[in-house]
Structures are given as structure tokens and as C-alpha cells.
């Protein structure tokens, strides 16, 4: 129980009641908007605060790079996936056949939805006829450490909502799914794009899976997947509920890859706790970039100099630290474009050859062969390197 202060329109009055407790309820026409108790203030209505009218970055959005701002690998260039692999940061193109579509940040140069500057654009490269076992999709796997509060596998499993903007040259019913990778369970959903070449805001609300837990680890737990064409083996008519098995889309959903030149674009992808979509969570660019670095990082020789110690005249070692701790020990490649100089701006440089690397979750070592150096000396080196700890 609580004392109340009620702003009433009929009768037009401020009505106060006291019940002798230490609790106070603030009401609008009898509906409690906020309650004060001995433990604090609980707001049940909308809370608007001057200076916080945007979205404070509280990690409500479990999707990383949902606004499609970061594209380390391709810097806005078009790529045609020949095998499954990442495109814009954290967004994976899963393909069962080579070269059926291209992916590009801001493909086609259409105007993004208001408030966004970028999108992920898919363009179909042929009128492909799907085979039963085919699958084409864009997805993002979410790390278990970022989902362990969802309480899956318990009676308290949380309802979540995925929202985003989609755009296509095609109209109709499209498919996708939320995938519980830990338990191999699929929540297949559909969404409609009623008007071609127009951004459409979609929301998918799905109940938490009370039966199957998610791994509390650095492994992939939930996937958000947008189907671009899926054969019968991985399609189902059982939508909007958790079902056992690996189902990527809904039976009969539109296949983007089956129309040559078809476009499908997406941005503002958000997955949040709750039964309705809220405004997109804008995070500062360095924050978002750092989140991407946990899964993929690259640099070129002009971006940083590393000490390169020659322990004999022809062999040396360098070491560095990643910008953030990576999800796992990354797969690391260093190309022959890497080099050693005797001083940073020296015209003399020599390529590093016979390179081997030693990546860990916090840093790396690079061993290599050089020429024209002296044993026991330390030089400057720059690397063209990539490190991937993607899910």
C-alpha cells in the first residue's frame, strides 16, 4: 500500500490520500506512474530527462556495429563471398554456393533511414534456383558473455525484441531467425516489405527459451540471421516459436538470390531485452570500434612502428598488444608488405620474409628474416597484419 498523489481530470483536482505507510505513489488519473518506497524510486511510466533524450550507451543493444558504420576489411568496397565469411564488421555472409551476391557498405548509394549514415547492402548477382540444401544469409553471432543475463533455460528467460530497417527492390514476405547455437534451436520469423525501394522498420519480439540455456562463455550463443534465399532442407512452416533444429527461414519466404540484380539492404539492427523496440542505441564511434576489435583487427605499416630486435643479423622479433583483449587467440596473418627500417623515416628499409606469428588474446609476436641489419640491434618495423577471433 501507499499514500497517493493523483492528478485527476475528473474532477479537476490534485487528490491526496494517506495510508500511514512510508510509500508514496504518483498517479495520473489513478494510474501509478512512479512509486517511492524505502528502497528507492520505481518509474513505471516513460522517463524523460533533460540531457538524456538520446540513448545512453548502456549496452541495451546486443548487436555490434548495428548501424553498419565500421567496415575494416573492405573500407566500403564491394565483396562477393565465395565462401562463408565476414563483410562489414561483425556481419557474416553465410553461403552454400559461391558468388551469388555481393555485399557492400552503402551499396547503390540510396539515402539511409533518418538518423543513419550507413547500411549493409546485398545485391543478387544472378537468378539462382535454390537447391534443397542451399542457404544464403547475413547474420551476426553474439558472444555468450553478452547474453548470459537473458536467463535462457530458466523460468525467467527474458523476452527480447530485434528491430531494424530493411529495404529491397523486391516486395513480399521475407524470412530470418534467431538461433540458439548452444542448443541448436531456431526461432524462425517472417517480416513484410510491402513497398519496393522504401525503407521499412521491422520488429520481431520473441519469448526467451525457458527450456534451453545459453553458454556462459566466449562462444557464440544467439545468432540474428536474415535469410536471402534458403532451400527446403533449412526452411520450416513453424514460425514464431522455438523449435529444435537448424532452420534458417520460413517456407515460401522471398529469395533475394533468385532475382538477378535484386537488392536487400539493412541497418539499425538492434537486439534488446523487452517486448517492444526502443530507439536505436547510439554508441560513441571509438566505443563501437573497440567492440569490433575484440573480434577482428587489422593495420598497415604506416599506422604504427614496432621495435624489431635482431637477435642475429638476419632474424628478429617484434611484439605488440591488441587495442582490446580479443575474444580468443586470433588467427593472424602478416604479409610481405611488412618491413624493417633502421630509423623511422629512413629511406632504407628491408622487407621481412619468412614470417611467423605468435598471437595471443592480448598481443602478438612476429618473427621474421631481414637483411642489412646487425645482431643485437633494435630497429623499427611496420606490419600489414590481420587478426581474427570471429565467432
Amino acid at each position, binding site marked *: 500500500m501507499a499514500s497517493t498523489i493523483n492528478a485527476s481530470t475528473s474532477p479537476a483536482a490534485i487528490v491526496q490520500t494517506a495510508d500511514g505507510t512510508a510509500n508514496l505513489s504518483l498517479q495520473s488519473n489513478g494510474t501509478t506512474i512512479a512509486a517511492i518506497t524505502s528502497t528507492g524510486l520505481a518509474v513505471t511510466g516513460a522517463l524523460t530527462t533533460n540531457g538524456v533524450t538520446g540513448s545512453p550507451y548502456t549496452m541495451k543493444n546486443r548487436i555490434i556495429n548495428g548501424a553498419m558504420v565500421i567496415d575494416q576489411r573492405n573500407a566500403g568496397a564491394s565483396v562477393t563471398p565465395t565462401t562463408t565469411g565476414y563483410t562489414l564488421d561483425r556481419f557474416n555472409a553465410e553461403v552454400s554456393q559461391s558468388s551469388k551476391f555481393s555485399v557492400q557498405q552503402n551499396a547503390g548509394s540510396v539515402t539511409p533511414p533518418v538518423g543513419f549514415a550507413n547500411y549493409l547492402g546485398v545485391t543478387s548477382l544472378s537468378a539462382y534456383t535454390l537447391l534443397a540444401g542451399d542457404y544464403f544469409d547475413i547474420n551476426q553471432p553474439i558472444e555468450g558473455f553478452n547474453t548470459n543475463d537473458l536467463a535462457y533455460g530458466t523460468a525467467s528467460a527474458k523476452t527480447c525484441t530485434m528491430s531494424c530497417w530493411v529495404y529491397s527492390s523486391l516486395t513480399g514476405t521475407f524470412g530470418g531467425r534467431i538461433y540458439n547455437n548452444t542448443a541448436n534451436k531456431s526461432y524462425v520469423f517472417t517480416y513484410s516489405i510491402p513497398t519496393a525501394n522504401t525503407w521499412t522498420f521491422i520488429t520481431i519480439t520473441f519469448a526467451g527459451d525457458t527450456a534451453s540455456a545459453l553458454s556462459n562463455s566466449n562462444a557464440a550463443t544467439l545468432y540474428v540471421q536474415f535469410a536471402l534465399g534458403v532451400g527446403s532442407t533449412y526452411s520450416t512452416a513453424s514460425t514464431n516459436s522455438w523449435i529444435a533444429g537448424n532452420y534458417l527461414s520460413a517456407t515460401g519466404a522471398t529469395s533475394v538470390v533468385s532475382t538477378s540484380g535484386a537488392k536487400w539492404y539493412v541497418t539499425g539492427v538492434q537486439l534488446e531485452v523487452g517486448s517492444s523496440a526502443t530507439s536505436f542505441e547510439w554508441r560513441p564511434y571509438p566505443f563501437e570500434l573497440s567492440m569490433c576489435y575484440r573480434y577482428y583487427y587489422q593495420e598497415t605499416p604506416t599506422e604504427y612502428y614496432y621495435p624489431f630486435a635482431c637477435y642475429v643479423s638476419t632474424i628478429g622479433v617484434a611484439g605488440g598488444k591488441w587495442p582490446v583483449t580479443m575474444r*580468443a587467440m*586470433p*588467427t593472424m*596473418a602478416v*604479409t610481405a608488405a611488412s618491413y624493417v627500417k633502421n630509423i623511422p623515416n629512413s629511406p632504407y628499409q628491408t622487407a621481412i620474409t619468412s614470417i611467423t*606469428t605468435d598471437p595471443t588474446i592480448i598481443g602478438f609476436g612476429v618473427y621474421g628474416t631481414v637483411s642489412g641489419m646487425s645482431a643485437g640491434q633494435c630497429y623499427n618495423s611496420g606490419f600489414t597484419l590481420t587478426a581474427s577471433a570471429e565467432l
Partner: protein
Amino acid sequence: MYKLVNLPNGKELILRVADNAFIPKDGANTDYQAYLKWVAEGNTPQPADEGA
């Protein structure tokens, strides 16, 4: 195709020959998971270089 590589510090990594990428033996690394699957299918990596 893969090749084993011995580092000067004694560690052993796997070289993915196609793109010259070094894969650490970390069970959470998806490339290492793919390598283990490849081995389980009956394939064998190239041995490390002598004296490396």
C-alpha cells in the same frame, strides 16, 4: 591445406596455406575448430620444416 609450424619459442601453430594465416591452438578459435574438423575427416597437415 594446413602445415604445422614450430616457433622459436617452442610453440606449435598451424599455418593455413591458402592465405598464409597462423592459427593458434585455441579451442575457442573457429579456424582451429575448422582445422580439427578437417583432421577428423582423415586429412593430415604438412609437417613442420626440419630445424624450424
